[in-house]
């Protein structure tokens, strides 16, 4: 029989599962850090088709247009940017919920974009997602117990009794009363529902969790609780987070490193404090200038950089630097050449012609 006692203790359990199913490959970068996820040249284009009987492709929404980044084991990498810049698409493409148009996603030594069918399905137990809308992400026809135990069920783990024990353990871990195991999602508040979603994501003891704006839909009063919960769980279960958010100030508190996205591309990537205190990209600077500062003296002197115009359509991004339509400091080359994401100082990457 499967040694399910380990189920109770996330980390040990994962070690058992991994030893059995996924001989873990460690990829170390030049500095010897353990890279859990390596994303290279990732693109996701949604075709725009027209035509009545014969559908023709007349263009593409370039939701994600060439991303390169690594995620290190145990860290929290923030992915921030305005709504519509492609953050959710990035998360979903990494998890292969959308198949990438181009590029590679290497997760613990396995190339995900090549996996199909059963192989991909089996791989899913190691990477999970927490969704933005706690009202839409739980099947209204399933009880909490069934929702949380479903991952165990679909991967055929444990007996029904062991699954129920695991559900109880998870509910306690995320701060839900296990007494409500037979209740249905509509009886819970937004914050409680998000906890159900978190418990479901934890059920298989994954190593990577993509959290897609897990607190944006919650009341401000509950946001901090859920963030603290996520941090506690990260410590306890040795989780790696790709934490998606649309607002930089939130991310600073949670993330070790942060990647700023604009129109399907990463414009700046670096340690949170570094990006926050010393933003190099004009877009990041503009975003940060909009964040109020608690110190009234500093707040008085704070200069807001107001960006002109709207975000261009991802179906038709500008030539050259895709920020050139709104950049306050754009120069001639910006309209001709696309800036590369370059390491300006060790660990701090910027995609701007002016930052060299």
């Amino acid at each position, binding site marked *: 029989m499967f040694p399910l006692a380990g189920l109770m203790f996330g980390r040990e359990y994962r070690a058992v599962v991994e030893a059995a199913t996924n001989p873990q490959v460690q990829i170390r970068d030049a500095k010897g850090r353990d890279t859990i996820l390596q994303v290279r040249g990732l693109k996701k284009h949604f075709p725009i088709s027209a035509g009545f009987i014969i559908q023709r492709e007349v263009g593409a929404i370039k939701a994600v247009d060439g991303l390169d980044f690594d995620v290190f084991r145990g860290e929290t990498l923030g992915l921030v940017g305005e709504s519509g810049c492609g953050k959710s698409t990035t998360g979903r493409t990494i998890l292969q919920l959308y198949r990438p148009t181009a590029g590679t996603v290497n997760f613990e030594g396995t190339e995900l974009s090549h996996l199909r069918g059963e192989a991909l*399905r089996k791989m*899913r*137990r190691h990477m999970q*997602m927490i969704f933005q809308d706690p*009202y839409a*992400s739980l*099947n*209204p026809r399933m009880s909490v117990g069934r929702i949380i135990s479903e991952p165990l069920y679909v991967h055929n783990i444990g007996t029904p009794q062991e699954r129920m024990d695991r559900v109880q353990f998870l509910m306690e871990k995320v701060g839900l009363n296990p007494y409500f195991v037979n209740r*249905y999602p509509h009886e819970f508040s937004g914050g409680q529902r998000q906890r159900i979603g978190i418990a479901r994501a934890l059920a*298989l003891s994954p190593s990577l969790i993509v959290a897609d704006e897990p607190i944006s839909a919650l009341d401000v009063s509950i946001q901090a609780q859920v963030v603290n919960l996520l941090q506690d769980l990260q410590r306890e279960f040795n989780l790696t987070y790709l934490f998606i958010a649309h607002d930089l100030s939130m991310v600073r508190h949670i993330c070790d490193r942060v990647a700023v996205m604009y129109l399907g591309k990463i414009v700046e990537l670096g340690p949170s404090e570094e990006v926050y205190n010393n933003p190099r990209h004009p877009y990041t600077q503009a975003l940060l200038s909009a964040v109020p500062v608690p110190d009234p003296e500093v707040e008085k002197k704070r200069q807001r950089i107001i960006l002109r115009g709207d975000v261009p359509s991802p179906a038709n991004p500008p030539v050259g630097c895709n920020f050139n339509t709104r950049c306050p400091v754009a120069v001639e080359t910006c309209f001709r050449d696309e800036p590369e994401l370059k390491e300006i100082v060790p660990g701090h990457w910027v995609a701007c012609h002016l930052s060299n």
Partner: protein
Amino acid sequence: MAAAPNAKPITLSEEREVVRTPLRDAWDQFKRNKLAVISGIFIILLIVVSLTADVWRSLGTIDDPNFQHRGSSYADPMTCTTDLRRMNPSWCFMAGTDGLGRDLFSRVVYGSRVSLAVGFVGTITSMTFGVVYGVIAGFYGGRIDNLMMRFVDFMYALPGLPLIILFRTFFKELENYPEQAGDFGRWLIQVNRNMGGLLFIFIVIGLLSWIGVARLARGQVLSAKNKEYVESARAIGARNRRIIFIHILPNIMGPLIVVAAASIPGFMFTEAALSYLGLGVNPPTPSWGDMINEAQVRGFASAQHLVIAPGLAFSLTLLAFNYLGDGLRDALDPSLRGS
């Protein structure tokens, strides 16, 4: 409020928790609609009566629907006659008789079988086909969806009535050759005969009217499959079959059930319309549509009672199904309720 000293303490085991399942919520909502509840009870009674008609006949409550009482044609309601077949010397026609002296009330009771049968056969056929078709198209999407929906457009343009006439003639001929059919075929032909020849034709009609159901099911699947809970099912590694049967179907069942309930009276109407065109039940099988049609042919002026019993039964049944459909819609269609 101070607790009475001898009040029983509430223990956990005694506190029976009411689990509020979505189905239970729907039922509570449905119960609030009195008209729908009454309609539901009426329909259940009707089904029971139609299934047990032979029992009532053997008990002598109703008559053989095809027995022709000589000399009692066009008898008025509540007239009585001598019944030579029974020890009971007198037989009263509650709803009168038709031109052949057949007891109208008994014919109405037996006629409910045809009406209910065509309603359910047509609905089951069109729902089965439409749901399977629409779910496949909506779930797999893309080119498959496009092709399948073009075929639906083609079906939409198909002229229904000429096809029905064609098939009706074809099946009438087919019934004459039971010896060439297998066991199942012979059983089907027998059922068809009991339904006055309408079983096959309503399968055809069902097959001609699944288009609307397919479109509805497809639309529902398209919107359900983009819900985050479907995506989350995919993210945990659920297979397509599980996603369809556990995550999509239960969530689109509401509108489908509503449409099913609403389509039953439509098929009953079709039966009446076919009778009107002379394409209805084979005589002497009693059917409401045929009886109303006959009353109309005889002229209401000469024998008004001919239309009263079947007309009343038909209208009440149609109304009941409509009210039931309304009640189900309020209870089950999540677009009209807060989730």
